[in-house]
């Protein structure tokens, strides 16, 4: 088990290095940050001085290495636009994104699994058919459109919920701010969370349903029924648990994409998170911010992957190779 984890962590670090390299080399095509930073009345000397100051005159591998060196120590340089350390800006923005992603993720997982199980067990019922049909809409509508529709319905027409921002927030500790503790914060969270979670929820639901239908056909389910176990036990203890083996992987990956997809939702709702920060950074060619954001996202994806692999082993005893007592 330990050897397995160490091997997977090693692989993860390699993946991160490669992602970092690819991302970093792409920035050179986004534009020249100097153009944005200096106004119209600039001299060649100004440009050269700034270029040297930012280290942009150095060869690419050197720039990348310096970036990595700083990143390992939690130092992502200084934002070109705001002139403040990137780490500080990210820390400021992270709570908004994390809270949004957590609520969306929970919503997607809980509702997705519950609806998936329901539609599998009652597969011929009217309710199940209706839910399946509705879920097609959820899968096919683009996120921004869902956001705009929700805003139109609940903010513009009904006026129940705010259409942008995070509402009032409360500071906890040195740098965490939460929207969970105020009424306006919670209200502001509802529409973005639904927008962000809906797609993942429908995906999880459809996956859980099809996996569960497959499991319900298995011999061991028939045998469980033949042993007279209660329906609840057969459906949940036997069928759902087996369903979760393949589903866990997908859920893990979906959670990763929730944070990545947050860019769109944050833009639609002007949610002050890291996604919105990234969009603004692109417009300004704020390389340190972009690099830090992409690194964080990849760390998260890789980390989630790792956790999923380990969870997998916990759920499925067949993967526990180093168990003793085999035959």
């Amino acid at each position: 088990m330990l050897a397995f984890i160490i091997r997977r962590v090693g692989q993860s670090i390699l993946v991160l290095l490669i992602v970092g390299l690819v991302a970093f080399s792409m920035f050179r095509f986004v534009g020249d940050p100097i153009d944005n930073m200096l106004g119209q009345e600039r001299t060649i000397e100004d440009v050269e001085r700034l270029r040297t100051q930012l280290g942009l005159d150095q060869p690419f591998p050197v720039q990348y290495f310096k970036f990595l060196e700083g990143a390992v120590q939690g130092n992502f340089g200084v934002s070109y636009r705001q002139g403040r350390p990137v780490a500080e800006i990210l820390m400021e923005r992270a709570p908004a994104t994390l809270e949004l992603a957590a609520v969306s993720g929970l919503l997607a997982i809980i509702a997705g699994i519950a609806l998936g199980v329901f539609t599998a067990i009652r597969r011929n019922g009217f309710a199940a058919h209706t839910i399946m049909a509705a879920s097609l809409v959820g899968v096919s509508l683009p996120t921004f459109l869902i956001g705009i529709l929700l805003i139109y319905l609940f903010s513009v027409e009904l006026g129940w919920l705010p259409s942008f921002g995070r509402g009032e927030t409360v500071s906890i500790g040195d740098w965490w701010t939460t929207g969970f503790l105020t009424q306006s914060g919670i209200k502001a969270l509802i529409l973005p969370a639904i927008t962000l979670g809906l797609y993942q929820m429908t995906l999880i639901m459809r996956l859980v349903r099809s996996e569960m239908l497959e499991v319900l056909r298995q011999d061991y389910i028939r045998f469980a029924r033949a042993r007279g176990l209660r329906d609840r036990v057969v459906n949940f203890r036997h069928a759902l648990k087996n369903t979760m083996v393949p589903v866990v992987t997908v859920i893990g990956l979906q959670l990763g994409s929730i944070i990545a997809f947050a860019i769109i939702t944050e833009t639609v709702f002007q949610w002050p998170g890291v996604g919105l920060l990234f969009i603004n950074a692109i417009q300004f060619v704020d390389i340190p911010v972009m690099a830090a954001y992409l690194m964080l996202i990849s760390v998260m994806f890789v980390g989630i992957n790792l956790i999923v692999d380990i969870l997998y082993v916990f759920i499925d005893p067949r993967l526990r190779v180093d168990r003793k007592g085999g035959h």
Partner: protein
Amino acid sequence: MTTPVLSIRNLSVEIPTRQGIVKPVDGVSYDISEGEILGVVGESGAGKSMAGNAVIGLLNAPAHISGGEIWLNGVRIDPLKGEEMRKLRGKEIGMIFQDPLTSLNPLLTVGDQLAETMLTHLPISRKEAAERAVAALEEVGIPGAAERIDSYPHEFSGGMRQRVVIALALCAEPSLVIADEPTTALDVSVQAQIISLLKRLCRERGTAVMLITHDMGVIAEAADRVAVMYAGRLAELGNVRDVLTQPRHPYTHGLMASTPLASEGQKRLHQIPGAMPRLQHMPNGCAFHPRCPKVQKRCSHDPLPPMAEGRAACWSPLLAEAVE
């Protein structure tokens, strides 16, 4: 006469299909008494499993019981629905499936699966259930049962898994066990062990057994009586010795001649010409008449003669004196 454990009367199962209603089980009657093993034989598709599934109430929709009666220990059970029937499953009727590799839930230890079954049916505590689970494994001959109780199914060999399946089917002490080809998926070397285990356990407890199989060797080894099925109907019913050595129905005769019985050492296996009719195209009269070497005129239109113990559903049985 004591009431038999299982008594099936004129049981029919229907499946509505696009080509009309088919009857995979059609007017089957037999009894199984306490401690008795009834072998059910017949070609693939004869309706053996359907009949077994009907008894335990596990017919897959749209198949359903369309006629007849099923009595268990003097109580009629075919009209029972959902929850009432569930309480009988495992408790009064145990079932053993063909493939031990797929019959056990891969994610639960064998101890958990035994305990959950007993806790469902018996008024015992968790601790007692855990103790009895070990005892149940011991009884089916799993060495080191106390240590193996926390093992997962994949940690056992096929033969050992079938022992676990038997322990599971018997752990709530049902009065009837339906074993649907319990050895077909196993190595030849362990088949005999499994059969003798099943035989021993059921004898000890007086459990009635419906033993569904293709294997005449298994029948000869384990069964007390034999029911021969053909195209959903009972062809012959009788004492195992009589049926194996003096079959009355030409189909049973063909079936015997086409199975290699070690004791007889036949040189060439006989084959019944033709194939069993598809359920959608059942011939009139006797379903076997198109393949029958002794076919008579009346076989193609007259309804079959009534069936009883020691009889064959045939107008020209091989032992003429059997028909009065």
